[in-house]
C-alpha cells in the first residue's frame, strides 16, 4: 500500500504547481495515502489480457478540413488576461 511521505507529497504538489507549506505537506501525505490505499483494492482484480478503455465513444475520430475558420480575435483572447501589453500576454520573467 502506498504511503506518501511528506517529501513525496511535496514532489507531487510541485509537479502539479500547487504551493504547499511544510505543515500542509504533513497533512497531504496521510490524506493521499488514505485515498490511494482505498483505490488499491483494484490490484486484487485480474486484468490480464484486458484491453484498456480510454473512451466509450464508439465513433470515428472527427476530422476538419484544412481551412482557416477561426482566430483573428485578439481582443477576445486577451479579454480576461490578468496582464497584457501590446497584444501580448504578460507573465513574470521566465529565466532559461
Amino acid at each position, binding site marked *: 500500500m502506498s504511503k506518501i511521505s511528506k517529501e513525496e507529497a511535496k514532489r507531487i504538489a510541485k*509537479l502539479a504547481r500547487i*504551493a504547499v507549506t511544510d505543515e500542509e505537506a504533513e497533512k497531504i501525505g496521510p490524506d493521499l495515502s488514505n*485515498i*490511494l490505499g482505498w483505490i488499491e483494492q483494484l490490484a486484487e482484480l485480474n486484468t490480464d489480457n484486458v484491453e*484498456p478503455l480510454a473512451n*466509450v465513444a464508439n465513433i470515428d475520430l472527427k476530422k476538419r478540413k484544412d481551412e482557416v475558420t477561426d482566430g483573428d480575435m485578439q481582443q477576445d483572447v486577451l479579454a480576461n488576461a*490578468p496582464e497584457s501589453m501590446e497584444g501580448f500576454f504578460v507573465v513574470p520573467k521566465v529565466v532559461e
Partner: protein
Amino acid sequence: MSLTDLTIKGALEGLKKKEFTAVELNQAHIDAMAKHKDLNCYITETAGHALTQAAESDKRYASGNTLKLDGIPLGIKDIYCTKGIRTTVASRILENFVPTYESTVTSQLFAAGATCLGKLNLDEFAMGCSNETSYFGNVISPWKSKSEPNKQLVPGGSSGGSAAAVAARLCMGATGTDTGGSIRQPAALTGIVGMKPTYGRCSRWGIVAFASSLDQAGMFARTVEDTALLMNHACGHDEKDSTSSPREVPDFTQSVGQSIKGLKVGIPDEYRIDGLPEEITAEWDKGIEWLKSEGAEIVRISLPHTKYALPTYYIINPAEASSNLARYDGVRYGLRVDEGGNLNDMYEKTRAAGFGPEVRRRIMVGTYALSAGYYDAYYVKAQKTRRLILQDFEKAYEKCDFILTPPAPSAAFGIGEQIDDPIQMYLNDVFTVTVNLAGLPGLTVPTSLNSDGRPLGLQLIGRSFDEETLFRAGAAIEKCANFKAHPFKGDAA
C-alpha cells in the same frame, strides 16, 4: 396555483393561451429567487437578462411565431460558459471570468426560446456530492428533516444549485453536468427528475471540462415529460466536439406515456450492497412492483465488477482532472497571485490560492496516478477495469432492456456531516459512477419522501443511445409513484 409551480408543459400552454406573459412567468421566478436567496442556489443572478429575453418571447407569442421553449425560465449550472455572463465553476480561480463565447448546449436552449435566470451553484469544478466544496458557499436543500427541522440538508452534488433551484421552484428547469452522478444523485436528494444522456449525446463544447471521458451534460426538471422536452434541445451533434455523436436526436417527449408492457427490467444483484438503508431497498422494491404492475418483466442480472467501479472512477476522474485543470495557471484568464517571484512561484501561489481543498486533493491524486512509475498500476489498471465494467453492461443488456437501481445509497444528509471524510463522500457515487464509466444514459425519477420527509427516488440505466426507453419507463414510474410533495407546502404527499 403559483406560476412557479407550473410544469414547463403547463407554462407553455398558459403562455400560448395568453393566460400570462413570459415576463410575468420570469418575474415570478425572479421574486422566488429573491425570497429564497438563503438557499444559495445562484452564484450569479441575471434577472435583467431573463426579462429582456422574456420580452422577446412575448413578442413572438404576440406574433404567433413561437419557439419550442419560448419564455421558459431556466437556471444554468455555472460550469456552462455563457457569453458575457460570469462563469465561475464555483471556484475562486475563475471568480471573475467572463467568457466571450456561449456553450453549445446553452446556445441551443436559448435558441429554442428559453431564458436565463442566472448561474447555478455547484461543487467547485463539479468535484463533490453535496455542493459543499463551492467557493461561493454551500447550497441548502429546500427540503427539511422532520425529526430535526433545524438541520440543513445537502442538495447533493455536484449540480446541487441546479437541483435545489428546480425543487424550490426558483427555475422551471436547469442544466446540469454528470461526471459520476452529479445530475442523478442531486435529483434524487431533492425530489426532482434528472437525466444524464449517453456519452456523446450532448456537446461538451463550452462546458468547463472536469473529466473529459466521463463528463456529460444533462437536464433537470420536475416531471419526466418536462425533462424529455428540455433534452430535445440540449442534445445534438456538434462538429466542435470530437466525441459528440452524429446520431439523430429523437423527440424524447414521444416516449412519455408509451406502455412498458413486455419491457425487461434488469435488477443487478451487486447493487444490493452491505449496509444499504432499509428505506432505500424498500423504495427499490416498490419500483420493481410498479414496473411489474405496468406489465414489465423483471430479470435478475449480474454486473460483477460493480465493486471496482468506485476505485476505477477515482483514478480516471482525478487523472483527467489533473490535466484538464492545468490550464488554470494565472496566465490568460482567472486569478493570478503574483508576489514578485518567478513564473513558477506565480503558478504555485495562484493555484494554491485559487483551488479549494477537494480540487487540490483530486489534482494531486491524479498527478500521482499518472506519474512515472505509477501509471500502469493506477491509470492503465483503471482503464482495463473500465472495459470490464462496460462489458458487464453489454452482457446484461442481452437479457434486459433497462436497469433499475437506487440512485444513491441514502437520502439527503446534513451539511457538514461527511465533508471531512473524502472516502465517505466518494461512496455517495456508488450507484452512479458505473453509468459514466460505461457512457450509458441514466435517469432519476422522484418517488417518495422517507419517514423523515426527505426525498427518495429511483435510477433507470439504459442502453447506449436508448434514452427513449428511460423516458418511457421513467414516466411509468412517475405515474405509479404519483410524487406530489412540495418542499414549501408541508405534507402534500
